């Protein structure tokens, strides 16, 4: 690991200022991804600003919904009564990710910031436009079984690895960030992450030095009919091949409103307005769900080794919706 200066922040504004002042500085929260990447020499900060002492871990009612602190751990968030009762889809998504130890360390802000687990991104002798812009995409011509089927570019076919964010997209969460000057702004979580396009080195739309302070959840109508389905190579503790965050608002058997977000398919959680439109106003049935699943992957462009993801995504969407509507 390369040398870095360690600073323990006691104040969010000072933390944001410190990072803003140094292009090579980074925030440190749980460290579960950043430390790993530093050991691998993928991330090379010369200064870490430790956020873990900041009072940004509160989970509380706010603006008709719930505000979860950026520094609340994944464990505390998933198990908080306000989340379990009002946003059970979020709880399901969080506990589908990582291990007990990692969820005890990982924070909500850090979870949004986690980087792809593409093996070409991790391997510093391989080309990777995300790690080193201009070197090419190792995965595009290499082994891409784990990679994207939607929204990728010639520059990058990596996927966003997280689970929590898939639920946050379905719940239309808002990310609150604070700048070095102390001012705050919000952005819908759907606008937080980016597709790779020409600049895969940029995972998200934060400015350098902007600090996530909270994630705000609007009042949820998805407390009864929801399901987070994660399909992976083993039963636990692995990244998703396909994940589906499904939420329905039912009136009898008629779908009033639907949310479908796919994980493991793109550079960001992939919300499917096409699938949602195919569900809205229809009767909840396996037939309806099949049509929605077809719509979700209609524009998919699989790579050499991941055509299986198209069919897997369809089946996963149908199963998640069957469970959400309690038909299975």
């Amino acid at each position, binding site marked *: *690991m390369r*040398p*870095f*200066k*360690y600073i*323990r922040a006691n104040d969010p504004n000072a933390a944001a200022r410190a990072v803003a002042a140094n292009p090579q500085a980074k925030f*440190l929260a749980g*460290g*579960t991804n950043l*430390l*790993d990447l530093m*050991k691998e020499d993928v991330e090379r900060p010369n200064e*870490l600003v*430790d956020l*873990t002492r900041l009072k940004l871990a509160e989970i509380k009612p706010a603006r008709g919904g719930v505000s979860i602190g950026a520094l609340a751990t994944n*464990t505390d968030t*998933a*198990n908080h009564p306000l989340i*379990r*009762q009002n946003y*059970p889809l979020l*709880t*399901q998504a969080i*506990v*589908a990710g*990582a*291990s*007990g*130890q*990692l969820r*005890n*360390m990982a924070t909500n802000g850090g979870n949004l910031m986690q980087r792809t687990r593409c093996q070409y991104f991790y391997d510093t002798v391989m080309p990777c436009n995300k790690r080193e812009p201009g070197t090419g995409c190792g995965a595009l011509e290499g082994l891409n079984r784990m990679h994207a089927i939607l929204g990728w570019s010639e520059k990058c076919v990596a996927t966003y690895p997280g689970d929590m964010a898939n639920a946050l997209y379905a719940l239309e969460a808002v990310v609150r960030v604070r700048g070095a000057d102390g001012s705050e702004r919000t952005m819908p979580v759907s606008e937080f992450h980016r597709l790779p396009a020409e600049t895969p080195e940029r995972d998200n739309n934060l400015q350098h030095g902007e600090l996530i302070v909270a994630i705000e959840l609007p009042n949820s109508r998805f*407390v009864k009919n929801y399901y987070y389905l*994660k399909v992976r190579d083993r*039963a*636990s*503790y692995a990244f998703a091949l396909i994940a589906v965050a499904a939420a329905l608002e039912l009136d009898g058997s008629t779908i009033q409103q639907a949310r479908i977000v796919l994980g493991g398919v793109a550079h960001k959680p992939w919300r499917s307005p096409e699938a949602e439109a195919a569900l809205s106003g229809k009767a909840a049935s396996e037939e309806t769900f099949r049509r929605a699943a077809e719509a979700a992957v209609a524009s998919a462009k699989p790579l050499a080794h991941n055509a299986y993801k198209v069919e897997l995504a369809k089946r996963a969407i149908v199963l998640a919706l069957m469970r959400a509507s309690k038909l299975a």
Partner: protein
Amino acid sequence: MNEEVDENSAPELTADEEALLKEMPALADLGLTRRTFVKQTIAGSLGLFALDLLAHEQALAALTPSPGAVFANRAAENLVKIALRVNGATKSLEIDSRVVLLDALRERLGLTGSKKGCDQGQCGACTVLVDGRRVLSCLTLAATCEGKQVTTIEGLAKDDQLHPMQAAFIKYDGFQCGYCTPGQICSAVGMLAEARHGDVSHVTEDVSATTTQLTDEQIRERMSGNICRCGAYPGILAAINEVHSGKQTAQTWRFADEQQVARVRKADGNEAV
């Protein structure tokens, strides 16, 4: 800029200027006295040029780990002083900012029970309890542990009394090579605390309902962050189950006594048994 400097007043040198003089004896060789150097530094251009040179030198020196003032300064900048409680005792350490908790425990405090498996947060062998919660010490910077309570496998027993989880792992043969065992046991202790607190898992049917009872499936899922290469999972599961349920079952094996060992030796004709 051409300010007049009183040659007799000898202004104080800044730290940078002192360093410059020290680093660049060539300036003196060129016949520049301390005073004229100061004058020219203040006059501007040479000072900026020389400082720029020095910056380059520092950058080069930092690339090659050779002893010297510049390197020592860098090391000091990245030194972190921490005080934390490890297994009940206060420990004060001066550490390189890069040191993770696992290495601080093993290399600085002599607590080698916590194991380095993958060093990437994938195997769980380094699991310890920080403020009562199970975490991965390989992905925890020691610097972040200021004031925290750390419990390692060495701190679970009370004097000669094994922690119930340690005793159960022995009773149920919850290991073969033993390398993952300290992490397994610390993880299991932390996991049962989470279960008592009503925490949910990936296999919880209804996350809005609270239960503190664990099925085998629940234990397996909650322990999935601890890998055992020997495959001692049935024993690990049985051990955790017993501590969780409090229901004791009879031990199915015992150590051979001396007579039994002697009989085997005689039968085999092999003293090395």
